[in-house]
């Protein structure tokens, strides 16, 4: 039975009247038309559908709509265009087919929140849930280091400004 669910999506309040057991992935894509969150396996195995729910990184294919009630969801579309990860990804030429990359970036984002200067090992642990069939893994490592650097510089300039 459909049910009215309310949550914040990329800073904007959303109300959807859908079966609350529907995975959030399909609500984002089919109901709300946000295509950055990708479908790869529907079993929580590939990471293509990674989003953040109240700051916690989750696989949206495993998350029933009801779990979003009253919470804040961030998808790749919610990242500001000057986000260090987006810049690092482009400058490192990470992208091949690109299908996995929104999910990779969402996972990397939560890694940098907990480990602002991650080691290769920490990257490998944090990013294990995200599959890339095009083999961009070595560049993802590079890009995460690069993004960490950009964040640091941004923080320093901010510090100087104030």
């Amino acid at each position: 039975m459909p049910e009215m669910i309310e949550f914040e999506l990329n800073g904007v309040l959303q109300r959807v009247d859908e079966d609350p057991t529907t995975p959030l992935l399909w609500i984002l894509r089919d109901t709300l038309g946000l295509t950055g969150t990708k479908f790869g396996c529907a079993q929580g195995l590939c990471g293509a559908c990674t989003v953040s729910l109240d700051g916690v990184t989750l696989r949206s294919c495993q998350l029933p709509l009801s779990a979003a009630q009253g919470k804040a969801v961030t998808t790749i579309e919610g990242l500001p265009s000057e986000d260090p990860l987006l810049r690092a990804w482009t400058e490192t030429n990470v992208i091949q087919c690109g299908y996995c990359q929104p999910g990779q970036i969402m996972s990397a984002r939560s890694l940098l929140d907990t480990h602002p200067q991650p080691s290769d090992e920490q990257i490998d642990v944090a990013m294990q849930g995200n599959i890339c069939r095009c083999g961009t893994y070595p560049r993802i490592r590079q890009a995460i280091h690069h993004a960490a650097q950009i964040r640091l510089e941004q923080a320093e300039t901010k510090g100087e400004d104030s």
Partner: protein
Amino acid sequence: MTITRRSFLIGTGVVGGGLLIGFQLKDEAPFPHTRPESFQPNAWLQITPDGEVIFQLDKAEMGQGVVTSLPTILGEELDFDPQRMRIEMAGVHRGYADPVMRIQITGGSMSVATGWDPLRQAGATARALLIAAAAKTWGVDEAMCRTEDGVVIHKTNGQQLQYGELVATARTLKPPTKVGLKEEEDYRWVGKSLLRTDGVAKCRGQALFGMDVGLDGSLPGLLTAVVVRCPHFGGKVESYSDTTALAFPGVVDIFEIHSGIAVVAHGYWKARKAAEALEVTWDKGPLAGVDSAEIRRRQELELANGEPSDTSGHGDVSKAFAQASEVLEATYAAPLAHHSTLEPQNCTAIIRPDGAEVWAPTQSPSVLRLIFSHYSEVPQEQVEVHTTFMGGAFGRRGHVDFAAELGAIAKQLLGQPVKLIWSREDDLKHDFYRPATLHKLRAARDKNGAFSAWEHKLVSPSFVETIFPNLGAALPTWVPTKMSRAAGSKAKEWIKGVDPTMSDGAHIPYAIPNLEVGVHHFDIGVPKGFWRSVGHSHNAFVVESFIDELAHEAQEDPVTFRLAALKDHPRHRGVLRRAAKKADWGMPPRGRLQGVAVHESFGSVVAEIAEVSISGTDFQVERVVCVVDCGFVINPDLVKQQIEGAVLYGLSAALMDPITIQDGALVQSNFHDAPVLRIHQAPSIEVYLMDSHAPPSGVGEIGLPPIAPAVANALFHVTRQRLRELPLRLAQGSP
């Protein structure tokens, strides 16, 4: 001579010679996506009066970067910054048909290699016309004009005209019959690592993949279809009941099509839920009871008792073996491999009274149009195909089975847009796999200790043959059924057992005077297809491992041994030497061991040195050094991306648990039991490109063949375990 997939298709007349006539429509507009008043001197390029330069991308962008590399080639000769061009997906048009194959296809690592000449010509011709237009406007000789990034400049008085301003005049001029091309030293964009132009959109989730079509509201009322297929290869529906499923919320329709039961609903989740409630009884089909072990057993029988369907080589192998003082023998095997593009197969279409539109992530848009037309019964002339970005392809999207299904589905839903979505499980269980192959190798040494003969018998189904089940259906509907059937079976006969892609990479470059490659054609009916690097993927594993065995037998260093036996192959020697140097061959860091392999494919040569560490029976590939000779390089960083990607794709198949067959069906279903390489298993990769002025050769697949043997050879050097079967597994008791 090595026969390529491409020349083979041409040689048999399968394409080009007439069988596929009808692929290209006679009454198409001269060029696609034409804007009024624009200057469109060829199928790729268009310049609008307000100066927009538009490139029609005719090749599939599946990750390999043609979206950046092809415009660069044209832009260089046009003298216009490729990164300022607007790139559009071209769809199907005869202007893009391969000049020889006559179909529009992306594969065989050929896009840049075959595009290099025509795209340069196209750019240069357009530039010549723009110069002529400027000269005419100013009333001066063309020699008085030069260009600079989108502007024609008067050499003496410095007057300038933008390309856009010249469009009206350029349109009226006759193209010159001959144009000069730039010298390499004058290149401004070619040869530089321009960043990918699709990077930002893809990072932000804004690029349009097949999966995304219509979700932005551009196809109001878009429905989703899923198909429940028989899990057993070649099986079919015996009976089904949809009473429960039909009652599920959001279900629009349920009906049977050629490949199974289609469930159509509002959105994927509703369609999937209803599909799970279907009750279907399957006729298991011809492979019921067959499993992987049985397939292996029958391959062994074929190798032991069967006759090769095709033999090639040089010298007299039997004589050399008769006179041998020592014979080495080994059996190698490679298992089935799955493509698992991260974006599962999908396709979107709408049939309107005046024709159909199809959006497809496909490597093969012209064949797709034909197949869709056949199944939807919409004449080809009225089917417009839009190619989308695609989440990987690796050969899988050269097959258009999903378009056949969608044609059959859309036919029942006239006027309603519908997207067919395969689940990950569908995608894995109904792939066109790299087939399992079995190989028997023998080498002879003469009384002086020199290797005098090499014999390689392999058993494999034909790859090329796989396109023929489609072919009967693929012929235009106006071809009478009987004739199209005849064409299909004739083609099958031609290639029966003499498909050279089966032995791709088995004809070793090493100086061994007598060589024989015997191909045993054996096909049990498991779907098979082109998988990144095709025959090279398993043949390189076999021959580059066995040559290592020979080096060991001769008690020589694997690199030195290869170099000596490659005396007539300077490109092989070049990459091998440089790889040895870059990887500090023979002096690996503590706790690591090295293995080497070198292989030629798609006109390019690649050497790889893998560094591996071992603990017990576990091992980790830590570092891979690759040296690549792929002719002249258009965009070095794009080449490096492709080599990195191919190494990891090959490593995934070389290391991860294989997929298997039971009762004529694939056992595995998703990434938990059909694992693929993840980031912690990925080595660091260094890629070095040889400086070459030869025409560009293949790139997209060439990095794959050497990786499995390089790793296997590294493992041998410390454990003395010769791993002759993929995936690579160390046995207990290694030192």
